[in-house]
């Protein structure tokens, strides 16, 4: 044993102890506001939790402010709407697993169906409870291309050209991407008069042109816009416009195909939660407010297609060009049928991506 000096040890110990005390004090100071602050803020105003999907952040920020103002004018009460955003499917799972959402405002109806089916906390007939099939605003799939459209991409058929690289998120992980896929499928179905073998070949060629499959829609936008990969991004119309506004209107153009799919983001209150929390009236008022003139105008301002265009103040929003849109139900029977055929494990999408099926079929 070569070391002995006891003085050195005890000095070190004193310093260590001082450091530990300091750390504990620092931690205490940091935690105090969070422990004391949270309950006080919650007791003051009733809150709603709106569990939504990624691209609606900017829209609901405006809606929530307008609703709080209107609610206060009407009832004299304050209300605070908390937001949660994420991938639509992931958000649905969180609600099923116990996230106490008062209302859900998700990308595709199947996600709310899933909550109703797996948790029973939303009534099965939820789509009939609000006007327009509980879809206060809709959208569609368009193409975002590089400025002046150098590859001259005009319609769905151009996506399978050998010289075109297509960016879309993975339909297995992104609800938005399922619409991209279904829109392309529906186009091919019409083009080839329902010859499914040729439709599959078309889809295989399309996905052979996809160099990167991001897990979410915004990831794909970043890949296309910031990394400069691909010639065309398949995107929701509102997302394409937002990307244009946020990331450079000079660098990109929006191309609208002749026909595209109707995207129906739907909304519902969560019966199991609003009853437990005593927020049913508030939640219903909030969702009905989405159909008001003000909220419809806000939807239009955020590049959605409002369900009640006649209510919109068009001096404050830009009218989107009319397009021929078909619904998922019309082409595929129902969302759940489309889901089961195409996206479930071993479904058509997986078959397209088996090594044997790629390109050959």
């Amino acid at each position, binding site marked *: 044993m070569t070391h002995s000096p006891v003085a050195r040890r005890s000095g070190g110990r004193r310093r260590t102890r001082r450091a530990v005390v300091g750390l504990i004090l620092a931690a205490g100071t940091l935690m105090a506001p969070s422990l004391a602050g949270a309950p006080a803020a919650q007791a003051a105003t009733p809150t709603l939790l709106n569990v939504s999907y990624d691209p609606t952040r900017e829209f609901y920020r405006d809606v929530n402010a307008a609703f709080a103002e209107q609610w206060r004018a009407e009832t004299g009460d304050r209300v605070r709407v908390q937001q949660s955003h994420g991938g639509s499917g*992931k958000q649905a799972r969180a609600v099923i697993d116990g996230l106490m959402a008062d209302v859900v405002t998700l990308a595709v109806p199947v996600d709310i169906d899933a909550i109703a089916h797996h948790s029973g906390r939303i009534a099965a007939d939820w789509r009939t409870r609000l006007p327009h099939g509980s879809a206060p605003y809709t959208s569609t799939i368009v193409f975002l291309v590089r400025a002046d459209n150098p590859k001259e991409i005009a319609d769905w058929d151009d996506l399978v050209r050998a010289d075109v690289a297509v960016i879309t998120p993975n339909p*297995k992980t992104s609800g938005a991407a399922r619409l991209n896929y279904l829109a392309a499928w529906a186009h091919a179905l019409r083009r080839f008069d329902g010859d499914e073998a040729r439709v599959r070949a078309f889809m295989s060629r399309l996905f052979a042109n996809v160099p990167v499959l*991001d*897990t979410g829609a915004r990831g794909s936008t970043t890949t296309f816009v910031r*990394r400069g*990969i691909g010639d065309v991004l398949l995107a929701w119309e509102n997302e394409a416009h937002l990307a244009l506004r946020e990331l450079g209107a000079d660098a990109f153009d929006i191309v609208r195909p002749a026909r595209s799919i109707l995207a129906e983001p739907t909304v519902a209150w969560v019966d199991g939660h609003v009853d437990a929390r005593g927020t049913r009236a508030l939640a219903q008022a909030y969702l009905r407010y989405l159909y008001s003139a003000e909220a419809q105008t806000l939807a239009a301002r955020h590049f959605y297609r409002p369900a009640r265009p006649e209510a919109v103040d068009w001096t404050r929003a830009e009218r989107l060009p009319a397009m021929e849109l078909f619904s998922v139900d019309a082409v595929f029977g129902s969302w759940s049928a489309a889901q089961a055929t195409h996206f479930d494990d071993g479904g058509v999408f997986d078959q397209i991506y088996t*090594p044997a099926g790629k390109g050959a079929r």
Partner: protein
Amino acid sequence: MTAPRTVTAAASPGPGPGPGPARRGWRAPSVIPGFGPTLGITLGYLGLVVLIPLAALVWRSTELGAAAFWDLARDPRTLAALRTSFGAALIAAGVNAVFGALVAWVLVRYRFAGRRLLDAVVDLPFALPTAVAGIALAALYGPQGWLGKPLAALGIQVAYAPAGIVVALVFVGLPFVVRTLQPVIAEIDREWEEAAASLGARRAQTVRRVIAPSLLPAWATGFALALARGVGEYGSVIFIAGNLPHVSEIAPLLIVIKLEEFNYPAATAVGVMMLSISFALLLVINLLQAWNRRRLTDAR
């Protein structure tokens, strides 16, 4: 500093019967107190935080049934994803084992400008959220990036290819090797190296015969941890991998896909497969280390 004992590892020359063949029952008697409480805390904490939740995972995967589990395990897509994850993690851990050891050695032994900065940067992969790391690496190694552009000119694609996965895993795994080795390198007694040198050993021999053996356990640990961490990594990889099925799809992404389908049993089953392979890898490395320790002890 401590006595020249580093190489003898756990050899215990003190009072009481040493470890090794003399052990009776399931543990060797020792004069050191605290076995009960510390092992109790360890097992209790491990049980609550790790074992019970993981048991829930295994339990949920049994809903799948043996036949379906087996089909999933043999599914080419599952196999491809597992191969991608384990293959990329192995390569990345190998890169880290070599360069991480070098970095640890340089940081501990040499004094040069910028050493403290480099030392600080090593922890970065833990502090940066993995998603940020993935975004930064994708920007850097992407076709327009600072490094991606020159590499693309050479015909090398890193981002959105399997090589991108390796880059991300090198990033997340590096601190494991460096930080495991650093304290041990600092502990190596220079007297041993001096003794070796004075006995006529050349530097290379000293490194091979004296330094390397004493670093081996920590080095193996670092490698194992970097490997284990790489296998499961998700956040940084999905931004740089490209995620094409059968090409650059990692096993954790497969789990996410199963979850999206509300197929919890299949998701947990893939999780259990990954867990079993990682557990086996870690166990083998830890057993090898225990064996190495005993070998050194018995040789004395």
